């Protein structure tokens, strides 16, 4: 195992001391197979205990360690040091307020996620003793890709529309709404529509597509949003037909 010295330029912000963020450089002896999160953990354990950042699983499942690495939204646990030069700039995810160091304020996303009712709304609740809701493999396939979202917020950080229009519901929440709309066990599409198909929902997306490019789980939120635009437009047009709901 070879060792390499890496310069980590980390954006620091300590609200009790600082008026604005500043870069602090740490020279870290890194192993070849390390990811950026390992380097940050080394700093935390061996060099500077005051550095704050979120992480948990170290295997791109929990979605906690999202940060901007050389300006690109990444999971720190999935960003291998071998893919970088000797100097790496690490900042908190853009488009979110900084709580402290690399920790962002997620409140806005959580509220928006709740607003799309990201859970199965069944036609009729049935008691547990009647067994599970059955689903064919094809029915599972229809939504599975969108269910892989880990709420890591890389997509929000990449989305220029969210940066410019803070009311925009945003990629992950809209993709998750689509995930439940596509689920054969769910009948909640109309309950979500007033948020999803609103001005601040799918129609605020201009299809830059950056969300899908940075998604570490290949969820393709941009694709989900365009598909919802299509069904929503069909809903609107059919509402003019006799018997249509307006």
């Amino acid at each position, binding site marked *: 195992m070879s060792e390499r010295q890496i310069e980590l330029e980390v954006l620091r912000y300590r609200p009790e001391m600082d008026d604005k963020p500043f870069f602090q450089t740490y020279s870290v002896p890194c192993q070849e197979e390390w990811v950026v999160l390992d380097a940050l953990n080394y700093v935390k354990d061996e060099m500077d205990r005051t550095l704050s950042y979120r992480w948990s699983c170290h295997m791109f499942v929990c979605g906690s360690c999202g940060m901007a690495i050389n300006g690109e939204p990444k999971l720190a646990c999935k960003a291998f040091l071998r893919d970088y030069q000797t100097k790496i700039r690490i900042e908190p995810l*853009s488009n979110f307020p900084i709580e402290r160091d690399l920790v962002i304020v997620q409140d806005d996303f959580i509220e928006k996620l709740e607003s799309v009712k990201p859970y199965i709304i069944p036609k009729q609740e049935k008691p547990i003793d009647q067994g599970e809701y059955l689903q064919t493999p094809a029915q599972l396939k229809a939504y599975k890709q969108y269910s892989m979202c880990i709420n890591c917020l890389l997509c929000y950080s990449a989305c220029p529309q969210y940066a410019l229009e803070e009311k925009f519901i945003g990629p992950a929440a809209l993709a998750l709404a689509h995930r439940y709309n596509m689920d054969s066990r769910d009948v909640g599409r109309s309950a979500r529509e007033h948020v999803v198909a609103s001005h601040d929902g799918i129609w605020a997306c201009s299809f830059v597509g950056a969300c899908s490019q940075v998604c570490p789980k290949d969820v393709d939120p941009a694709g989900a949003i*365009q598909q919802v635009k299509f069904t929503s437009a069909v809903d609107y047009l059919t509402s003019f037909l006799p018997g249509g709901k307006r």
Partner: protein
Amino acid sequence: MSRKPYHREVSKTTWFLKQSRYQHYMLHEISSVFVAIYVGVLIVGLFRLAQGPEAWSGWLAAVTSPIGVIFHILVFIFSIIHTTSWFKAVPQAMRIQRGEEIVPGNLIIGAHYGVWAVVSVVVLLVAGVA
């Protein structure tokens, strides 16, 4: 201790300079302006045709002038950018499921290129060029 989150401002006018993927998006969006202008030029051509031979030859002279040719080359380049960037995005918006499989994106993109080629040949045949 009370919280004091730090808000970073995003420029409303220069945001797209930040990343190359935003610049590609802007290029794609701007290409639509050239396509729209060309549609306008063609519609004007139709009107001139309806007005008689003299008006038509005037329009023809304008579009075949050096400036007209440069304009056409520009429109051609931006039309290619517009078309290819949209074709690339189609599988995201057009997700087709057959049983338990999703139709591969390359197949959908390829079909679009195929239809584009067929339509182009038909147009050239009708125009008497090919």
